[in-house]
């Protein structure tokens, strides 16, 4: 292997390169090397942050996990006075509000995505699409304020009595709609979360509906299908993975929502079957109690809650990404 200067001499002697050109090339190689390393380190830092979050959460949660063990997840009591903590109330609150949000948001987002891709005239698509995305841009705390001061009184005065008198009279599910009707509680939190995640699910569904090859839809129209039949029998089966991915993305978002839920969930450390009752979610517990938590066990239990939240959000969002990736792999086909 010739040394660099010997190789340079060979190039110069054969007339392929001049000394100046070789100097420039060497400089550019160095610049490219630095470029690669610098940009690589910035990309690596994003990955390191994720790892750092997981590690710091585990370290912070360790005292509580060691004290309570796996029973932490199933214990109901949350007693700062006696230093006894269990995550079940918060976990149930998070899961139930997010589930209600998903159940309400799924049909509405589907309708919006369907409207924007199939029915909407071309000149209206951009403004309406932007309007739906503006809904996603409204900060979470604004949703909380609107929910507490505008929506909750409406729910307490009209919707909750109505639900209690109709669905509340049925034998099994009546339990979900019983109890005092204060307007704030799990149902209200679920409703606000639904409005918050609708734009996310709608935009993912819309992107996914637009990937369907036109030739498939045109064949169906050619056979005489109505528009609804084309959507139900051609578009939906083709985009199944994408739709499920969008739903899980919305669910992952709903898990982590803090401010909107904190305003309207009522902040009560109680578990009850009724949807009208106040409760707590992981995020709202953290928001309410972290700044003032005193004993190390309290702080550590809050870290443990944060760890649980991060893990379930991570799992759901990863599943969503995987489903959406499998959808975009078909994007290149015509």
């Amino acid at each position, binding site marked *: 292997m010739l040394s660099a200067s010997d190789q340079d001499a060979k190039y110069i002697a054969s007339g392929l390169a001049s000394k100046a050109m070789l100097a420039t090339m060497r400089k*550019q190689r160095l*610049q490219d090397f*630095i*470029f690669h390393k610098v*940009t*690589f380190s*910035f*990309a*690596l*830092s*994003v*990955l390191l942050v*994720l790892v*750092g*979050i997981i590690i*710091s*959460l585990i*370290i912070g949660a360790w005292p509580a996990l060691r004290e309570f063990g796996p029973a932490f997840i199933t214990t109901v009591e949350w007693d700062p006075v006696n230093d006894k903590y269990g995550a079940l109330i918060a976990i149930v609150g998070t899961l139930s509000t997010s589930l209600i949000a998903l159940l309400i948001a799924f049909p*509405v987002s*589907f*309708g919006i995505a369907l*409207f924007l891709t199939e*029915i909407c005239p071309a000149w209206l698509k951009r403004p*309406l699409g932007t309007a*739906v*995305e503006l*809904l996603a*841009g*409204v*900060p*979470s*705390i*604004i949703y909380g*304020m609107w929910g*507490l*001061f*505008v929506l909750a009184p409406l729910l307490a005065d009209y919707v909750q009595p109505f639900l209690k008198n109709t669905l509340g009279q049925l034998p099994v599910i009546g339990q979900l709609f019983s109890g005092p009707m204060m307007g704030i509680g799990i149902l209200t939190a679920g409703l606000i979360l639904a*409005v918050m995640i*609708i734009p996310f699910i709608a935009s993912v569904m819309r992107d996914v509906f637009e990937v369907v090859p036109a030739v498939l839809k045109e064949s169906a129209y050619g056979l005489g299908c*109505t*528009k609804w*039949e084309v959507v139900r029998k051609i578009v939906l089966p083709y985009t199944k993975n994408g739709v499920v991915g969008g739903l899980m993305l919305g669910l*992952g*978002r709903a898990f*982590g929502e*803090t*401010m909107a839920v904190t305003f309207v969930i009522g902040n009560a450390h109680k578990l009850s079957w009724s949807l009208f009752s106040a409760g707590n979610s992981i*995020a709202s517990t*953290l*928001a309410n109690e*972290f*700044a003032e938590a005193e004993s190390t066990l309290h702080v550590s239990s*809050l*870290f443990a809650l*944060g760890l649980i*939240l991060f893990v379930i*959000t*991570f799992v759901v*969002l990863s599943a969503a*990404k995987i489903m959406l990736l499998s959808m975009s792999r078909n994007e290149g086909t015509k």
Partner: protein
Amino acid sequence: MMHPDLNRTATVVDPVVNPAVNPVYRRRLWIHRIGIGLSFLAMSVGLFFLMWILFTLLLKGFGALSLDMFTQSTPAPGSDGGGLINAITGSLMLVGLATLISTPIGILAGVYLAEYGEKNWFAQVTRFVTDIMLSAPSIVIGLFVYAVYVANVKHFSGWAGTFAISLIAVPVVVRTTDNMLKLVPHSLLEAAFALGAPRWKVGIMVRLRAVKAGVITGVLLAIARISGETAPLLFTALNNQFYSANMNAPLANLPVVIYQFAMSPYDNWRSLAWGGALLVTFGVLGLNILSRTLFSQKIPK
């Protein structure tokens, strides 16, 4: 003479050929109409909620907008009047610094992903992680910054708040930059390479420059996102009742002030909360609209 009836052809309408009377078709048509009608309804519901929220903000927040709001600091509990100037200044400082930190990191990371990340497994993993961080709960980011920084220096500060919201802004910028850079056609890059440009010049001066507007959109969207974030600031920057420009101490900021004042029993506090909410929302929406109109990216040819 022919019987008069024989001159007429059959006038019974045949359902097989005429869809208007075919019962199967009529049922399909009705299902279609109901489905499309429900879709219209869903769109209206979405728009209705948007209008309702904006209208509520305007109604309740407009009364609080006054010169006082922009000149006085947040009032003490029980005292009258007051304004939001310390919160506005604090928020501007936090968001401004966070943007300064997160923009270069985000853009350079995005450049790496687009330039070297086509088949590279590290780049795929980073993209995956970035997308997850985009939707990660922001309160957990606040917990992380608390554990790593605040617990060690033993006091809340504006720097901790800046750190926390930069962590939220970086994935937005990375994702947008990466997507935009991938749109640049290869013929443009090959022309630059053919002229003898080194890789870094092609990456920055040709590729990045071609999608300038799209990258700026990404930065504006990140700013819009972090302006409204409350949760990460709750245990990092905390809040400050007085006007202060000291980044190394608790710093007043609009979202946390809104949070504290909204659920309080004082009328002037609640009215200030609505005024602050109006400011934040219309600022965020303005940035969103600006990024979609003024800086909309024409796909480079």
